[in-house]
């Protein structure tokens, strides 16, 4: 996959779901960690944990609501359950169970949704989680993380396991550009500034971060210095970092592989609107479901490219 990148080149690393699976297997050394999957353990990469700790792994079958209920009970009994499935089945199929069994009682359940976004490609819209960030953010107390690459997904997996309370991590299907190293500074709730700049700020997460870096190169060619923030944690959002960007740069563009409503864009806009109203533009899937197609074709068709970010930045700087 190219992700439409043309101005910067990155080494391609593992998919975030794969890095999660590896990290989860490492975390299995903690005997309290229990993994629950819903007949997709060969897709979520929880198989690695399953092979190492078969007694602490449950494939409950195609029964997402049941998975969440079981996790709720395990957490109430002091365990650290990790529930993995395709993000859309996990959040959409078990929304009320997450509400009643995880969020409302504020239990220590770790949700991991894989195959998020349209970059899954040919399987098509029924399998694509495009509203999952909004769903997860809607739950009081839920920590929501969308890592951009393998190393950060790995660090996030460990960090979320150590964090008390309900959490959701969103992972993707394809291998993605490497942006971090295994020892990079990466903290839940703290955005990473991957590029400095004082003219405009590009805020992104997931696969859109590499694209934002690519777009920043394009802006540099126009003489515009873009700051690029990896806003991996959507909730709790890094208010300070956003307010700083709003104060120090002229405009903000937010890019995410998600529908327009209720995701990163909305969350950042809330902070900007309250603290330092600033011109903003949004790059996302809009208000529509996608189709089947090759991942790169879909990203191009639904406007998730470096050039789309570049255009949005030029547009917002012009007004």
């Amino acid at each position, binding site marked *: 996959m190219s992700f439409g990148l043309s101005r910067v080149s990155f080494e391609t690393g593992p998919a975030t779901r794969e890095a999660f699976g590896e990290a989860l297997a490492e975390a299995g050394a903690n005997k309290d960690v229990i993994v629950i999957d819903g007949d997709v353990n060969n897709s979520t990469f929880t198989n690695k944990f399953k092979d190492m700790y078969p007694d602490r792994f449950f494939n409950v079958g195609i*029964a997402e609501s049941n998975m969440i209920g079981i996790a709720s009970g395990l957490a109430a009994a002091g365990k650290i359950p990790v529930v993995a499935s395709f993000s859309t089945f996990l959040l*959409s199929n078990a929304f009320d169970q997450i509400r009643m069994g995880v969020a409302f009682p504020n239990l220590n359940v770790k949700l991991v949704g894989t195959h998020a976004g349209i970059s899954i490609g*040919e*399987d098509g819209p029924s399998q694509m989680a495009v509203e999952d960030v909004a769903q997860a953010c809607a739950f009081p107390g839920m920590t929501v993380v969308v890592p951009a690459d393998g190393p950060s997904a790995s660090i996030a997996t460990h960090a979320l396991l150590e964090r008390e309370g309900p959490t959701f991590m969103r992972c993707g299907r394809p291998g993605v550009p490497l942006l971090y190293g295994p020892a990079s500074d990466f903290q839940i709730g703290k955005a990473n500034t991957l590029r400095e700049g004082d003219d405009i700020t590009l805020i992104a997460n997931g696969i859109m971060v590499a694209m934002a870096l690519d777009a920043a190169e394009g802006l540099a060619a126009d003489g515009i210095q873009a700051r690029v923030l990896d806003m991996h944690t959507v909730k709790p959002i890094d208010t300070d970092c956003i307010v700083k960007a709003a104060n120090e740069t002229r405009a903000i563009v937010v890019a995410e592989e998600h529908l327009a409503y209720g995701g990163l864009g909305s969350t950042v806009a809330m902070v900007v609107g309250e603290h330092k109203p600033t011109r903003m533009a949004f790059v996302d899937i809009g208000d529509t479901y996608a189709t089947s197609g090759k991942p790169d074709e879909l990203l191009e068709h639904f406007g998730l490219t470096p050039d789309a970010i570049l255009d949005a930045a030029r547009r917002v700087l012009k007004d």
Partner: protein
Amino acid sequence: MPQARTEERTELERVARRLRHNIVRSTTEAGSGHPSTSLSMVEVVAVLYFGGVLRYDPQQPHQPDRDRFILSKGHGAPGLYAVLAEAGFFPVEDLMTLRKMGSPLEGHPNMRRLAGVEASTGSLGQGLSMGIGHAHAARLDESDFRTYVMTGDGEVEQGQVWEAAMHAGNHGLDNLTLIVDRNRHQQTDAVAKVQPLDPLVDKFESFNWEAREIDGHSLDEVAAAFDWARGVSGKPQAIIARTVKGKGVSLLEEAQDKWHGKPIPKEEEARALQEIGAEL
């Protein structure tokens, strides 16, 4: 409403072979998809669409009194598309656009993009409830159309299937027939290892259904089961169709746990098509 009925067993066999052929070709061309899932359902859909069971008119796909077939196991889309093309809903050549950008033949069925698709599916467990909606509508409109729903066997692990089963049984929806494609495998493992389902017939019976188990690859048994289902009054009917995941292609049949969601590689395609032996 027309009803394609061929009494000729050999003609139905030919149809089944063509469906298998097109399932393999379209998924191999797409480079992804679920051929093994689709191959196990071939005889059931062949009899449904060509054995005088479903009443449909591809020229008027939305006619209110048509019978409905809902593929709840939406990842069997290549099988559904193959039979819809064979039935004349769209040209057979279009099958080769499966999963491609711009094609209405998406990875999972989309009722808003392709005539003949009765429900958008792909998140497992929901089709039976949707079928109940159609069955109630038929009753309310005093229409005699029937609704057929197919689920996978892994799919019936989903709680909603049993919520639906309880409802249909308690409402005595005899215009509703469920076919469970009992191929004994799901995505990651054998169904018996994940969640043993037996006794499945008893489960449905205890929910006030009539149920029976058949050989889902025997055209005669499938046809007889649909005749039986239409004769049942006062209860919905469940047909547990014993099938083989990947039926007709030895490569898939021999390692059923390895091929879920994987197309036959290009270099194996010719051999698979030869085994199927469709006369085109």
